[in-house]
């Protein structure tokens, strides 16, 4: 699938390492100086950073807009595969997303299915991390465990599912929100290579913007969902309640600053 260049066939090509460094940044991207600092730890010199950033920008894999950001990721690159997996895995929640939007799934079923599928996805992803490790690639295995589960796209999808269940319908926001494009991950073909274009719309801060525009949250619905969770998982919720209580007590007893 796709063409691999000489660079991509190397284990740690400079281009791939630089893309990984930039991929770690949030929507604000990374400044040249920051990239140089990170790259130095990887043994890449400042002149090499400058040279390869230019190449990557020319190839439209990175874009330069004051800072360097990801424009496209070649699917041969491991982090693109991890992030694409996190998107395709969300099909696990298709039925919940639809049914919750129509208000036709009872809370008990929603809570049971939601928690079951998040758990399945977490364990599946972690096991894949161990699988990569068993294939003599512990670095990649570690990245599956640290980065392939609970991605921003997944958390945004879960937020939408839960929001629909709380309100019992698809909720119209009180005000419009301006979103960057693309609105979904896109797959593009260029010169025989498949590229994944990450969705700029889903970025840190989106959830806060959406929550700000929600109609008042019905407290009684939150309480009902919490009760369902408690009934299904009494021991587990007790542990979590105690954790919250501990933090709350500690905060109360601590001097406000």
């Amino acid at each position, binding site marked *: *699938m*796709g063409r691999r260049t000489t660079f991509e066939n190397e284990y740690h090509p400079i281009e791939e390492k630089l893309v990984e460094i930039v991929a770690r940044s949030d929507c604000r991207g990374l400044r040249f100086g920051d990239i140089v600092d990170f790259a130095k730890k990887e043994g890449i010199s400042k002149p090499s950073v400058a040279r390869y950033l230019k190449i990557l920008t020319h190839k439209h894999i990175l874009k330069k807009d004051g800072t360097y950001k990801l424009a496209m990721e070649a699917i041969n690159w491991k982090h693109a595969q991890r992030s*694409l997996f996190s*998107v*395709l*895995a*969300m*099909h696990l*929640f*298709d039925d919940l*997303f639809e049914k919750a939007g129509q208000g036709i799934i009872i809370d008990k079923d929603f809570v049971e299915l939601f928690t079951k599928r998040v758990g399945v996805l977490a364990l599946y992803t972690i096991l894949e991390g161990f699988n990569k490790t068993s294939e003599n690639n512990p670095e990649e295995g570690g990245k599956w465990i640290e980065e392939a589960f609970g991605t921003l*796209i*997944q958390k*945004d*999808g879960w937020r*939408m*599912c839960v*929001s*629909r269940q709380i*309100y019992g319908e*698809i*909720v*119209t*926001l009180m*005000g*419009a*929100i*301006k*979103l960057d494009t693309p*609105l*979904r*991950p*896109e*797959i*593009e*073909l260029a010169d*025989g*290579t*498949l590229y994944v274009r990450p*969705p700029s*719309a*889903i970025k840190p801060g989106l959830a806060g913007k*959406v929550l700000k*525009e*929600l109609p008042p949250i019905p407290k009684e619905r939150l309480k009902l969902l919490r009760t369902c969770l408690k009934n299904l998982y009494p021991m587990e919720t007790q542990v979590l309640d105690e954790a919250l209580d501990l933090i709350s007590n500690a905060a109360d007893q601590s001097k406000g600053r």
Partner: protein
Amino acid sequence: MKITADQKKGDPQKAAAQLNGSIAKVATLPKTQLKTREAKEDQKGLT
């Protein structure tokens, strides 16, 4: 998703189409613009 023999032999066009068609709906946001009727309707998809 099953990778077909065609893709293994090298049919990136087909692979791209299959991947694009496989993006989960819950990983897709609606198109919105500020202060338009269309935007108001599209806000639904964000929740």
